[in-house]
């Protein structure tokens, strides 16, 4: 389980110390990026979402209460940013990784990956974020509940429903969470 943020760093960050804030942020960028990439399935969008989330965290760090865990607080901002990004991007022209253009044809595993990604994309945002946090970031349900601001039971319900809906499009076995 994640430890609470270093109180000295939090205090300094609240005073406007950029170095303190970046020290708090640095270890969180990888899980944040993985969450955003899993949610948005687009590297460029994921980078943008994490950057925006970092800006919001910087502006809101005074709201971080003493003893609060930094990771779920920041990942919650990232998750919300991903939802905003998905809502707001309909008219944007998006970037894709040029290295992947014209690559060799996907093999069976790649096709299976496409199926699963598409199935994930079809999930509701609140289910998808739980699925990504649980299965991709390997976080415990308790922390996911903190990140999403939902109860443990609600998170577990979303997980089960997400798995059930995935199964409709993608053949997977029964899962015991």
């Amino acid at each position, binding site marked *: 389980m994640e430890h609470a943020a270093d109180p000295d760093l939090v205090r300094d960050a609240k005073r406007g110390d950029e170095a303190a804030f970046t020290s708090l942020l640095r270890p969180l960028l990888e899980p944040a*990026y993985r969450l955003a990439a899993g949610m948005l399935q687009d590297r460029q969008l994921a980078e943008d979402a994490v*950057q925006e989330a*970092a800006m919001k965290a910087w502006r809101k760090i005074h709201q971080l209460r003493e003893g609060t865990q930094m990771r779920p607080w920041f990942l919650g901002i990232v998750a919300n940013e991903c939802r905003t990004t998905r809502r707001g991007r309909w*008219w944007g022209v*998006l970037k894709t990784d040029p290295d992947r253009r*014209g690559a060799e*044809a996907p093999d069976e595993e790649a096709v299976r990956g496409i*199926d699963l*990604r598409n199935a994930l994309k079809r999930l509701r945002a609140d289910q998808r974020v739980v699925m990504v946090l649980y299965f991709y970031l390997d976080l415990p349900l308790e922390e996911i509940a903190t990140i999403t601001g939902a109860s443990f039971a609600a998170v577990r319900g979303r997980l089960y429903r997400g798995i059930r809906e995935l199964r409709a499009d993608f053949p997977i076995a029964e899962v*015991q969470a």
Partner: protein
Amino acid sequence: MNQDDALRSDIHRALDPITGSTPDLMPAIGQRLRPVSRRRPLLAIGQVAAVLGIGLVVGGVIFATHRARVTPTTVTTSPTAPIVAGPGANIAWVTSQQASGGAYTGDLITGIDPSGHVVGRINARDELRSPDGSHLYALVDGGLDVFSAVDGHKEQSFHLQPVTYGLPMLSADGHYFAVAGNSPSSLQLVDLSTGQSVASTNVGLPAFGVPVILGEQAQHVYVVGPTIAKFAFDGTTLRLEQSTTGHTLSCDGLVVGGANSAGGLPFRVLADGRTLVAFCPGDGRVTWFDLVTMKVTHEVVVGQSNPFWVSPVFSPNGNTLYLHEGGTGALHVVDLVHQTIVTSTKVATVDSNPLAWLGSLLVTPAYAGGIDRTAAVSPDGAWLYAIGDFGARGGVSLVHLPDVSVKGRWLPDVSFNSVWVSADGRTIYLLGNGDELRVLRADGSQVTKLSLPANTFGFIVPTIP
């Protein structure tokens, strides 16, 4: 491994290729932190007040300048940034015509992803696909419906003034939408980022043509038809600046283009932002038109058996026009920058059906815009996939475009009538007889074959003006 771990492993395998290694985000974040560094509240308030004050002054100057500005006489350049694929751009959307009592009632549009799964269905008509492939648009009574190309769900509806025979078009960056139509003869412009209809004008002449929107703020809108009309947009109103007379594009009154016509649009604005190149399916003529001087600057006529059945396809950079004759398998390559015909050669195999060309005798105006798409270019511009038409077997020819040579042929015993390549170039979709769709990988191996609703008509390809 338990079931939980199995799914976890599947999801990791599915998402890892998308995620890749975590980029170093801290430098960009650090740069952005500095301008918004949180200072003491009073200082911050002072800064905000100062910025607002400066903003008001600058805004006032800009507004005054904007109001006083005379509309420039030169054309604003079209967006030259490369169009990159959006979400859903690898999904093929195929129309199947619906009819009642023998009368066309609309289209059933089916989305198929690269794994061959149907991802969604849409009931619509007069469809259009965004340049980045991410959205589908359909004119409806009194408005415009917008659908996601990811799964076909309706995202938005925009109100439009009712118009009949409307011809819609998007700007290259997807920010603006325009529709020209008759009854009443009008041109409407919509800012898609706000969903607001920003301008509308009654056109004094029949607005029978396709709108072409140029400039980041849609500073100019052209209606390209038998004549070409040029409108200036100042942010609030559309004003007719100039119009040609007669049949500018020498196409016997035929409107070139329109939503979802063969191979997308048979015209394109070149990278210089001022030259429109159009292919006329009436006589096989390629015309260069200067959007600033509003004059035809050059024409070439490509010798074709029957240009009506030619599928015109532009290279991704817009510098080359490929004219593929589905009936004969001939390919003509036109260098649009140097205004020359580079080569004409036969690339597709067309045989086995001696009655195939009977189809060309049955052409009626009702078929305009419904020409099979018999060629598609890969997104890197290196390959052209060509098929025969009219039920002729011959499969798919792989044409290496740098030297215009056939390097291979897939499924030679199968007949196809339309081909489309996904935005990432990894998937080739082929429509065949019997409303059958095949999904192939870029190495020619088949992913799947599936049946589509009856009267399958063609792909809705991204329209790039």
